[in-house]
């Protein structure tokens, strides 16, 4: 095949190696196209996961059966969890914005291993397909919850195996992305970009990559052990076979708690980019934010046991995990104070990305502070496995990572597509999101305190009022998300041309064309200033 001529001054969208438009996407090793492939895959799954969430909330709008049977509800929350966790928020920000922006932000032409990068996406797609097969194979969709707790996961008659194998495969995608980012950041930073001149989003990707690399194999092995137990009755986790079900919980959470930081750290990186740009001010405590990022990643390895306070661990383990959990709150709080201090006396330009960033601060703080209730053994025992936990988790993950994702999408949209979006619709979408979000999840804190268990499709009449409010919140939230997504999709096609640097940012991505060229830079830049060195 003749080598096609590539014009390095064209945008990367115009570079075509194949006649088929689809092949130009799915066989491209360009980090920007791979980032967008992840974006489209993740948003597709997000629509499915969000609609499943809405279906669950409609079921809960009244006591008793409303729109689905109990078993269908079990399958719905399991599938919702698997999609949202394994297919969306774990790959989420690193796979989409890390791929698209990391090389540009550190002044490189691509990631260190472009082919491995494309392989990561293919593995992601393969894992997703295998996980989705669980919905149509065997004796019905899995009903274990996304945590696959033993011994139920190998006693249930539902089709758990494909979901387990799918999650196992998805782990490889995560590991390879992490490996690629670590090497890229170590070896490919532009001349002059010392570690302490690197922007904070790449810093959070770096910390995240280490968690992806070190923690993901643990869940891979754990899922293999469940598969082996299910197929060969080995007796790792089943008490009837001499196994220990709490061992499963240890192994599962040794990965899945650090995974929470895989999800949240890059979102914190996005906020650390958005706030200085829209304040036109150097970020407060740059080094403290880096130190807290690394501390969160490190201490985050050792707090998994707070998911297991009521599982039957020893008292010594209980106080130890509680202590460690309180320690991890400190670096998170450092970040919040630094962001607020950056806003203080800044030249605030209240644009849509800053709306989302402020939304992140507001929702994440509620999620973080309610986490203290769950981190303390005495209060956790009271609200464990109630809707309080579900509300806390969604405030942190959806209110934190989800909002961070939308902040990133609105911040870098002009760079990615070279187009501007409609501000009015973007504001409507944002405010609808906040109102819907608060209506949906705030009542769940109260319901949990009153004793409403999670994962039940039915409830007592005393919980009815809170559930009605929550269900209507879900409807508003979904409608708002639809507005946000439709606005972005139509703007990507028909939006006005965006200037190269619409927000007056000074990190490297704002110095390149919108959309960027294939190799990002005509010549590799030499970095002389810090990433947030705003001079007025």
């Amino acid at each position, binding site marked *: 095949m003749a080598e096609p001529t590539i014009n390095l001054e064209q945008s990367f969208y115009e570079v075509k190696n194949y006649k088929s438009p689809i092949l130009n996407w799915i066989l491209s090793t360009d980090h920007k196209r791979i980032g967008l492939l992840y974006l489209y895959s993740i948003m597709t799954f997000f629509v499915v996961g969000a609609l499943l969430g809405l279906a669950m909330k409609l079921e809960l709008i009244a006591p008793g059966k409303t729109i689905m049977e109990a078993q269908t509800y079990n399958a719905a929350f399991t599938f919702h969890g698997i999609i949202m966790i394994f297919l969306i928020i774990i790959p989420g920000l690193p796979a989409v914005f890390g791929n698209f922006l990391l090389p540009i932000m550190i002044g490189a032409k691509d990631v260190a291993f472009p082919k491995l990068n494309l392989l990561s996406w293919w593995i992601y797609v393969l894992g997703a397909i295998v996980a989705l097969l669980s919905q149509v194979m065997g004796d019905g969709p899995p009903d274990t919850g996304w945590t696959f707790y033993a011994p139920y996961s190998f006693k249930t008659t539902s089709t758990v195996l494909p979901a387990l194998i799918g999650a196992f495969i998805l782990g490889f995608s995560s590991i390879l992305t992490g490996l690629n980012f670590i090497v890229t950041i170590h070896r490919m930073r532009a001349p002059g970009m010392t570690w302490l001149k690197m922007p904070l989003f790449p810093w959070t990707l770096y910390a995240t990559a280490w968690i992806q690399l070190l923690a993901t194999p643990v869940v891979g092995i754990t899922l293999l052990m469940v598969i082996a137990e299910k197929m060969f009755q080995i007796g790792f986790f089943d008490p009837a076979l001499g196994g220990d079900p709490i061992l499963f919980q240890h192994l599962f959470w040794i990965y899945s708690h650090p995974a929470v930081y895989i999800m949240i750290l890059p979102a914190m990186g996005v906020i650390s980019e958005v706030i200085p740009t829209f304040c036109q001010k150097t970020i407060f405590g740059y080094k403290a934010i880096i130190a807290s990022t690394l501390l969160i990643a490190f201490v985050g390895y050792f707090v998994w046991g707070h998911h297991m306070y009521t599982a039957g*661990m020893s008292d010594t*383990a209980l106080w130890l995990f509680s202590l460690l959990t309180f320690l991890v709150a400190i670096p998170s709080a450092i970040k919040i104070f630094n962001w607020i201090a950056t806003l203080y006396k800044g030249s605030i330009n209240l644009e849509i990305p800053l709306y989302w960033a402020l939304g992140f601060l507001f929702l994440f703080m509620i999620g973080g502070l309610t986490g203290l209730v769950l981190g303390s053994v005495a209060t956790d025992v009271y609200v464990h496995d109630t809707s309080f936990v579900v509300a806390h988790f969604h405030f942190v993950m959806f209110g934190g990572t989800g909002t961070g994702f939308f902040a990133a999408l609105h911040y870098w949209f002009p760079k990615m597509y070279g187009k501007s979006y409609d501000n009015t619709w973007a504001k409507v979408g944002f405010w609808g999101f906040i109102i819907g979000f608060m209506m949906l999840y705030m009542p769940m804190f109260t319901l949990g305190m009153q004793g409403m268990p999670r994962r039940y499709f039915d409830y007592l009449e005393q919980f009815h009022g809170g559930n009605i409010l929550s269900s209507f919140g879900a409807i508003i939230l979904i409608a708002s998300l639809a507005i946000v997504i439709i606005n972005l999709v139509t703007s990507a096609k028909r939006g006005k041309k965006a200037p190269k640097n619409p927000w007056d940012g000074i990190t490297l991505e704002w110095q390149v064309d919108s959309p960027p060229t294939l190799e990002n830079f005509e010549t590799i830049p030499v970095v002389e200033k810090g990433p947030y060195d705003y001079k007025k």
Partner: protein
Amino acid sequence: MDNHSKHIVPYKTYLIILASLIVLTILSILITEIELGEYSTAGALIFASVKTFLVLSYFMHLKFDNLILKIFVGLVIAVFVAVVVITFMDYIHR
């Protein structure tokens, strides 16, 4: 970028390491023949650790690499050890 000198390991060294790994594997099987009670697992883990050390040092070239890489691997092992110790804070005190 670093310009670290290339170090070529003679084939003989690789063969010695390979033979050592095979011997250690055989020993880790033979040790199960001896009734050591709860120390059987510890024995197996010691053999596995020595094998890991050899693979990391020679086959993965760590012995001849930059100090920074050794520090990284050391940190990873330290995290792993800490995770195991914390897990056993549950099992030992139950």
